[in-house]
């Protein structure tokens, strides 16, 4: 009988200790974000979407067509082609297959002119795999090709 009473007391005490923690969390600071309606901010170093942003001074990107990023990429997902000679050398193709990219950032690291950078986007999912191949225009635009989450927000946010 004695032992049963002790065990019952222990069970109640354990339950009480647990509920105290729960209660503290209940009245404490909120930790969640209503995601598609509210966006979270990402850190400046965020490995998000790759881009070749346009330099406002020259009106073009800073790529000097050195092929270093293509060579260092572990997934071999960057494809560069260039035409012309010397000063007239021109990028004819700069494709990144974002479905293969593992966001390792090695291409950003080796680029001598900081032409290729990460931009803080994280909603790059799409309905079609073909939309994950980013060509030169997409990369210069530095934005996801198919902003799906907007659709979600519009629907959920309707009053």
């Amino acid at each position, binding site marked *: 009988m004695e032992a049963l009473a002790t065990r019952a007391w222990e069970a109640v005490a354990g339950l009480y200790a647990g509920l105290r923690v729960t209660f503290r969390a209940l009245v404490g600071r909120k930790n969640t974000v209503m995601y598609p309606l509210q966006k979270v901010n990402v850190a400046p170093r965020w490995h998000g979407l790759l881009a070749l942003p346009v330099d406002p001074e020259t009106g073009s990107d800073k790529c000097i067509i050195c092929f270093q990023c293509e060579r260092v990429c572990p997934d071999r997902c960057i494809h560069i082609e260039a035409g012309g000679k010397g000063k007239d050398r021109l990028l004819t193709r700069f494709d990144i297959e974002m479905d293969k990219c593992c966001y390792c950032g090695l291409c950003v690291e080796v680029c001598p002119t900081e032409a290729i950078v990460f931009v803080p986007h994280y909603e790059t999912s799409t*309905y079609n795999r073909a*939309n994950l191949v980013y060509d030169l225009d997409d990369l210069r635009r530095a934005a996801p090709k*198919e902003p799906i989450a907007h659709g979600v927000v519009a629907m959920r946010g309707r009053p």
Partner: protein
Amino acid sequence: MSWALVERLRERFPEVEPFPREAPHEAGAPVGRPGRHEARGPTYHTPGAFVPAARLLEVARVLRDEAPFGLDYCSFVTGVDRPEQDLVEVVYHLFSMDERHELLLKVRVPRRDPRVPSVSALWPAANWHEREAYDLLGVVFEGHPDLRRIMMTDDWEGHPLRKDYVYQEPRWLVDLGAQRQREIEGLRLGDRA
């Protein structure tokens, strides 16, 4: 201190051949450049020895049970395929939990028919590691209680970590992939973009 252990092992078993000792590193040698190192043999940073396959069990038993060795822990068993020498090196890493010393054992076996006695009776931990080496490199461990493939499926062909291994997609997988692709295209998912 573990190199001293290798010496003790050699005293005990003269046919054991210690790894060539690490040449002291010349100060100022460029980092990560082969060049001068190339002519030399490989540098062994972890102490160990080559053991003939026929003596392996005997050596292993002494290493586990007798002072000063007392290597009671088997970290891993694996293999290195060396087609140009027509060899497979079976590598054992042993460690002593009490003395804190370690030892690598290497057994060289012919590539065509690699067979070594299993040490899983001495170190039960070697059981799965030997299965893995069998699966990925095709080394046969004689006397192993349960030598089956562990990583690949039971009907897999070839041993993937061999240097000359070529992956070929089985016919059924190719057909299935094509079928899936046709189904997905039928859904016309991308048109929404």
